[in-house]
């Protein structure tokens, strides 16, 4: 395009626009190497060649690239700082968790040692090999023997809970018949039930086979049964049933105790949670069902309600 051609064209047609890219685009579509630069009035104030544009565009691209590189560098620095911080936090959390485990291990050890001697010597006295005891002394001794066992249960519960939370509890699945395991769990709560004249009735199918962790199964059942006995008033009943249902075994424990208000059905599975009236009646730590819930999270083969 020559200067004469420019002068005869419409203003809007020839203006290269305000950006390098727009001017280049116009040259490309019009297939010419030069464009006039016009004032608002339409007066030509100069010419732009494709060479000028090439240099301008090149500079822009170089500027853009270096800007982008700068932004990327900044981003990377932020990212690295973030990752570093995250690693630091992780390490701190791991350290804290390790300390917690060590503390629990030490505490459990420190509590078990004296319990061992209390339980042992009480048992020695009860055997009366060191001399006969009066009825009253025997009764006192029974009290001395009961509480350490209860303490031991609490320590074991706390230890289990922390093991599960730390993901250190391994479940060992095996196929077994639940009936003998249930008999076992029943016999462990019977003394307490008898002492309160709480009747335990069990209805079990001849044999119900499951695949589960036998020890934890028994622990859950024991917790449910001892809760049943604990919160059932003297002379009440606890009923336990087991039967195969679909591909599962359904086990239910019910009692004639105070029951759990409907609005607290979820909360009873939180650790340390106890239904308000239970705290003063039955004692306990409120850990039994929480252990169940955590076990359930780790092994989704069961359900409890």
């Amino acid at each position, binding site marked *: 395009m020559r200067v004469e051609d420019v002068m005869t064209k419409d203003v809007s047609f020839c203006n290269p626009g305000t950006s390098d890219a727009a001017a280049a685009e116009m040259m490309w579509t019009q297939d010419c190497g030069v464009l006039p630069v016009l004032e608002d009035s339409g007066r030509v104030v100069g010419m732009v060649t494709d060479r000028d544009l090439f240099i301008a565009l090149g500079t822009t691209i170089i500027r853009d690239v270096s800007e982008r590189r700068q932004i990327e560098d900044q981003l990377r620095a932020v990212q690295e700082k973030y990752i570093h911080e995250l690693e630091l936090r992780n390490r701190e959390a791991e350290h804290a968790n390790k300390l917690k485990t060590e503390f629990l*291990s030490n505490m459990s050890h420190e509590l078990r040692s004296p*319990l*061992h*001697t209390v*339980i*042992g*010597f009480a*048992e020695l006295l009860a055997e009366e090999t060191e001399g006969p005891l009066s009825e009253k002394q025997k009764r006192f001794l029974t009290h001395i023997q009961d509480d350490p066992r209860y303490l031991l249960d609490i320590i074991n519960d706390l*230890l289990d809970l922390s093991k599960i939370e730390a993901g250190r509890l391994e479940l060992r699945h095996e196929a077994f018949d639940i009936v003998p395991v249930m008999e076992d769990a029943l016999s462990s709560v019977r003394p307490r039930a008898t002492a309160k004249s709480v009747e335990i009735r069990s209805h079990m199918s001849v044999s119900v086979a499951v695949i589960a962790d036998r020890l934890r199964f028994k622990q859950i059942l024991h917790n449910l049964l001892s809760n049943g006995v604990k919160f059932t008033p003297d002379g009440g009943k606890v009923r336990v049933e087991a039967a195969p249902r679909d591909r599962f075994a359904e086990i239910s424990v019910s009692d004639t105790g105070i029951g759990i208000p409907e609005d607290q059905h979820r909360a009873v599975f939180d650790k340390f949670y106890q239904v308000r009236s239970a705290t003063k009646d039955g004692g306990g730590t409120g850990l039994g069902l929480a252990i169940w819930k955590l076990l359930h999270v780790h092994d989704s083969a069961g359900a409890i309600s």
Partner: protein
Amino acid sequence: MKRVLVADDKAPGRELLRTVLEQSGHAVYEASDGIEALRGSREFLPDLIILDLHMPVLDGFGVLQELKRDQRFAATPIVALTASAMQGDRERALTAGFTSYIAKPISLSALRGEIERFLNVD
């Protein structure tokens, strides 16, 4: 009558074991730390060694390691006794070479059963 070495840094723990063992007619040698347990084992040459794992100076694992170097104890049952109950403790003790692992607290009948298991085999 068999000879049993009992190592525990706590006196009541030692007396409990001594009482149970003497009731069954066994002779008891007491040690209150790992070094005493080693010295006692070498002098007394017991038929059964019961070691608490947590002891000052030298712990149960340390005593076991020393005893394992001594041919005279090659056939002596060495039982770990501990109040620690973390998962993996039992495995660690058995892997280290203890013949058996007793977790405190333990009922007397279970304790007697465990002791006789090692003393009756001749």
